[in-house]
């Protein structure tokens, strides 16, 4: 009988479990039937309590924090919130709700003051006549979220913190000689050499101001024990971190000392950033299911994203900064028996690509950039022929590449003598068959574009042997990986690069000769195609000495762009946008900001 009871118990348990399962389903059916809309489901599932009811109130007219919870999906969840220790944009974004710089960029790439009272200029004496220093003035009466005043000394500390070599800071202060507090509100940054573009340090979410009192023990070797500080920095922004779980979830509540409180900003009382999944999953959450308000970084194939947007719960926004998907043509010889892709002062030229602009122009003409965009990027890209693609220095001299011209490419190759002399369907250049190693990172969009490009080239008698490398190895800067972009042990590469700010000077410096990475300098430098041109070097030196309001400055940028693109070292393909989605009822976002944090104006966001 005892065993009998055992079996009955077992069966009862199984029944109970089954009953529980179906019970759940029943309740939820009723729930969704009565509430109906996706937004209501969200509230139920995230357990929003009392303040969640505020979502039904009319838009943005109430007091600060009356708007309830805002749910953001960042599929790469933030690891911590201190920008100076970030391992990627995900962390910078998490910090940008809390920490603020002196000035930030708006979506148009215009500098606007954040903590500063106004932008320093030469006219108001903020920028030294010889560009050797810049003086910022803080707004009066600024408070940290703990209620203590913000002073110029906190700016000085942020510099001391980051320049301590043991901190492992990711911001670059190499051109800064000193940062000195003149008084409580004024701080002067002195440069090692004149900087006609002085708005790099303490500008944008990569250079926020930390509070000395909180971080004083965290500089240098102390950085490791500062988990609490890095997770919940004391800031000046509209929100404070209440809970941060690395790569999982961050929750924020309103900063009671925020300077906009009196004006009823911010509207939302709390923010939740949910991490995890991938771009497609978070796009589905906001656009199809309607269980959140914002989905970040949606690099999803257009054939998947467009139907999701068609579901009508949200809109996809795209913003262009300076990111360009491009091909690098190795100007040095990557062959194993040669000095593998070492520039060696020009002694190791690529047998086909070196100083061969016409041949590379033919390869560029054969590419249908419209099709690359349609297949891989949709609203997140537009065809380009420039490596510097953004205002106010956009070149139009290279625009012939925008139209695919297979016939023209074939004719050009015939004309320069790259003909198929042995009848195997592959052209030769000075006896060398045009067959190349073409490498990119492993990623669905890149592989589909790589396929298309190889196909275009096949039509002009050029063979591309396609390879793709894991992104972790492709962008590995330690020299441990032979697949790294800096080592460039291949003929052609494809990836995206872009400037961190709207000023081109700091970006175009990458392609000067001294920036060529090679074995003798531990592959340090951004001139990955190994482009060497005295003309370019001289022109860049000229640019670096020109003041921002010099009318000829944009002209020089265009010339630099035309020089490097015209040389064939770089073939630009697609001008890429940041793509994010917002729920339909979110208002006040304006244009998406690709030059700074996408949360840059979160205090203006409301629910309609």
């Amino acid at each position: 009988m005892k065993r009998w009871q055992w079996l009955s118990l077992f069966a009862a348990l199984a029944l109970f479990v089954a009953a529980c399962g179906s019970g759940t389903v029943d309740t939820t059916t009723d729930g969704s039937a009565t509430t109906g809309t996706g937004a209501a489901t969200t509230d139920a599932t995230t357990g929003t309590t009392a303040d969640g009811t505020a979502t039904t109130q009319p838009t943005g007219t109430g007091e600060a924090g009356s708007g309830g919870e805002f749910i953001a999906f960042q599929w790469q969840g933030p690891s911590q919130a201190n920008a100076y220790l970030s391992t990627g944009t995900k962390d910078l974004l998490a910090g940008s709700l809390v920490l603020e710089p002196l000035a930030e960029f708006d979506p148009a790439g215009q500098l606007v003051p954040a903590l500063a009272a106004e932008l320093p200029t030469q006219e108001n004496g903020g920028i030294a006549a010889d560009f050797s220093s810049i003086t910022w003035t803080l707004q009066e009466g600024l408070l940290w979220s703990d209620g203590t005043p913000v002073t110029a000394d906190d700016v000085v500390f942020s510099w001391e913190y980051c320049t301590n070599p043991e901190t492992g800071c990711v911001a670059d202060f190499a051109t800064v000689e000193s940062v000195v507090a003149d008084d409580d509100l004024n701080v002067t940054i002195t440069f090692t050499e004149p900087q006609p573009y002085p708005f790099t340090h303490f500008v944008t979410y990569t250079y926020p101001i930390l509070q000395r009192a909180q971080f004083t023990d965290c500089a240098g070797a102390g950085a490791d024990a500062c988990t609490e500080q890095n997770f919940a920095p004391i800031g000046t922004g509209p929100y404070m971190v209440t809970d941060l779980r690395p790569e999982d979830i961050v929750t924020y509540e309103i900063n009671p000392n925020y300077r906009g409180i009196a004006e009823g900003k911010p509207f939302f009382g709390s923010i939740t950033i949910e991490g995890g999944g991938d771009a497609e999953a978070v796009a589905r959450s906001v656009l199809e299911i309607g269980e959140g308000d914002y989905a970040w970084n949606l690099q999803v194939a257009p054939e998947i994203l467009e139907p999701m947007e068609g579901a009508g719960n949200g809109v996809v926004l795209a913003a262009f900064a300076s990111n360009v998907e491009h091909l690098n043509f190795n100007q040095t010889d990557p062959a194993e028996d040669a000095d593998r892709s070492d520039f060696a002062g020009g002694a190791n030229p690529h047998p086909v690509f070196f100083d061969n602009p016409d041949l590379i122009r033919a390869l560029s003409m054969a590419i249908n950039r419209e099709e690359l965009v349609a297949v891989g990027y949709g609203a997140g890209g537009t065809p380009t022929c420039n490596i510097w693609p953004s205002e106010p220095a956009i070149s139009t001299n290279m625009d012939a590449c925008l139209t695919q011209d297979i016939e023209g490419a074939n004719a050009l190759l015939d004309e320069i003598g790259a003909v198929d002399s042995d009848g195997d369907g592959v052209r030769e250049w000075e006896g060398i068959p045009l067959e190349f190693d073409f490498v990119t990172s492993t990623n669905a969009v890149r592989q589909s574009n790589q396929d298309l490009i190889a196909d275009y080239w096949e039509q002009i008698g050029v063979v591309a042997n396609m390879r793709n490398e894991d992104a972790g190895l492709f962008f590995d800067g330690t020299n441990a990986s032979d697949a790294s972009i800096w080592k460039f042990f291949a003929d052609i590469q494809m990836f995206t690069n872009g400037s961190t700010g709207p000023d081109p000077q700091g970006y175009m410096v990458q392609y000067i000769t001294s920036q060529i990475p090679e074995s003798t300098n531990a592959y340090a430098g951004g001139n990955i195609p190994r482009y060497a041109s005295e003309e370019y070097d001289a022109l860049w030196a000229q640019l670096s000495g020109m003041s921002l309001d010099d009318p000829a400055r944009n002209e020089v940028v265009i010339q630099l762009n035309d020089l490097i693109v015209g040389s064939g070292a770089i073939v630009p393909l697609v001008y890429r946008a940041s793509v994010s989605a917002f729920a339909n009822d979110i208002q006040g976002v304006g244009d998406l900001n690709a030059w700074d944090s996408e949360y840059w104006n979160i205090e203006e966001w409301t629910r309609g």
Partner: protein
Amino acid sequence: MAQYVIRRILFAIPTLVVISLIIFAILDLAPGDPTSQLPLTLPAEVREQIRESLGFNDPFIIQWLKWMQLMFINEPLHIIDSIFNTCIGDCESRARIISWSSRAPAVDIIFQRLPQTLWVLGASFVLGILIAIPVGIISAYKQYSAFDNIGTFVTMIGYSAPTFFTGILAIIVFSVWLGWFPSFYDSTLVVNSWDTFLAHVKQMAMPVAVLTLFNTAALSRFTRASVLDNLNEDYVRTARSKGLGETMVVTTHVMRNSLIPVVTLIALQIPGIFAGAIITEQIFRINGLGALLITAIGQADVPMVQTLTFMFAFLIVVFNLIADVTYGILDPRIRYD
């Protein structure tokens, strides 16, 4: 028995040391760069300084010895301190294993991730057992009946349909079309009322169902085979000829004998609960231990990967031991002396 257990435990120590050394060697040989997700325009000198400050450039043996000290001395001390609220040695400034991406103690993050993994995987594991064993027994007892055939069909589908397919299908049907369940998992949800309990059940429903379908399939096939083997044994015929009822024969004699290998299988699967279900966690955005491991690998967060993989290895060693011991308890014929 006690002697055997002690011998096994002593033997586990060098095993774990060797495992940690192998993990270190593999990670050291594998290329990886903690700065690979930073903007390309960041100068090489800044990158190098970051790697230097993390200890990335230390020789492999130094890194390993440092880690061994932290893992076997500092971390256990920290756990003891936090459980008993004590302070052994310099507990204030005790060095911990620090994750490179979050700059926070790796063990703390692992403990933070544990609940969601245990909830989802544990629930699907228990549900799987509760369903699989009765189904397996009935299928075997009524071999080739309609129940057996349907059971075989369903379990075959469950076993062969990968979770990345059934998972996406579940999201499309239950989240997108019907709007019943959320497609993500909120790990900060605190169950303190009927509503929050319901929210918790809702966010667990889909991942648990998908994993249960998969777990049940394998386990019920295994149970069925094991019961079938036993049903044809002489002792079953003897029991019947003694005049015992069918229920008695099946529950007392057949079940006890045929569940021995099933129990072993279950014990060996338990470490897998802690390791997380990497694919299922990714699909349902449950940031559990599987997701933690994958992100850590992607960011070349070496200390986190080492600590996690070592923890998995530790659990596997422990549960192997437990399986062996349980086997001895369940089957009195097995002696380890």
